[in-house]
């Protein structure tokens, strides 16, 4: 909805380790060390090294979200970002997570860390 402005610093994501995947009906949360958390609401693509899976908050999506537990313990090695709000996280296990800002009406995801809330 809001995109991702260039001046928003996301360097804190580098090196963060996935410590938790919380699966809800309408939201998936990825918890990292250092109290960093990404909550997704609209759409993300998860590449498990062989297949790309698409999660949206719709029936049956929890099974797709469940596949992302393979990210537990992996760390973010690099990231790619775009002003349209797309954020691609590349993990140490060669898996990828691409989160999209795919809604014009509602926030697509948010990133929180101590003292900051970034809403996209």
């Amino acid at each position, binding site marked *: 909805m809001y995109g991702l402005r260039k001046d*928003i610093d996301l360097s804190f994501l580098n090196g963060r380790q996935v410590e938790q995947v919380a699966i809800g009906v309408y*939201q998936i*949360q990825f918890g990292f060390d250092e109290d960093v958390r990404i*909550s997704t609401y*609209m759409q993300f693509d998860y590449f498990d090294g062989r297949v790309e899976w698409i999660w949206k908050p719709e029936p049956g999506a929890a099974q797709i979200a469940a596949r992302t537990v393979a990210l537990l313990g992996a760390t973010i090695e690099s990231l790619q970002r775009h002003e349209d709000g797309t954020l691609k996280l590349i993990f140490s296990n060669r898996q990828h997570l691409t989160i999209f800002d795919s809604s014009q009406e*509602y926030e697509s995801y948010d990133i929180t*860390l101590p003292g900051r809330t970034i809403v996209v």
Partner: protein
Amino acid sequence: MLTEPIKSQMRAEFDPAIHLLQLAAERERRHGSYVQNNPLKSTDPTGHCTVDGEAPGWLWCKGHSLGFTETKKETAAREKNEAEVREFLREHPEYLRNAMLMAVTLGTAMAIEAGGMGSGADGDSTVTPEENAAIEAGAAGGAGAARTIINGVPQPAAEGEIVVGPNGTAVRIPAGYVAAPAESGSGIVYRPAGSTGDANSIRIMGPNATQPVRVIIYISSGQPIVPSSGRTGTAAETHTPLTR
């Protein structure tokens, strides 16, 4: 998920403003009344519907599902609720005075949305006549004491407060909450002092071209909830408009 005892406690805490909250609940109920309150199992191949014994055309039904049209019964209920709200605010001007914080908050959220946080100019230009009236009512009532401003955002009272949006939706900011701007131009986050993440936070989103100012309430799991039910829901269900 909120348990019934907690919800009961919240109702008790909200009690003075319960009539205001009923307005939001009524809107939620109407949104679900299309296809007999069971949109997952019921379908509407013809676009027609029957609500409160009325069966107008498909356009009316579509409008009803979106909250634009209402039955005579719903009109009567809404007018009764609104009359109760007006009466309640007349008897309890302190809640109307709290609208001053809401007006300041809305102005700040809009200024942040416009990328002009702190300038005040953008926010001032978007204050509606109703918000101006609320500000004047607040000033007249002696609620004009200066608020602490941190990072351009007015802080809620330390003991907490109930604020009422221009459309009658009430939001309770609990005791011990602080306010901070959300990055990406998306309004204000109210959260327990010292906390991080979305858990137990309340976020007021700035408006955009198609959406008004909205509020989202998150529970301890960090998931947004539908205010009228306390359950998680879709984005459309968990975003409550604060302005018309």
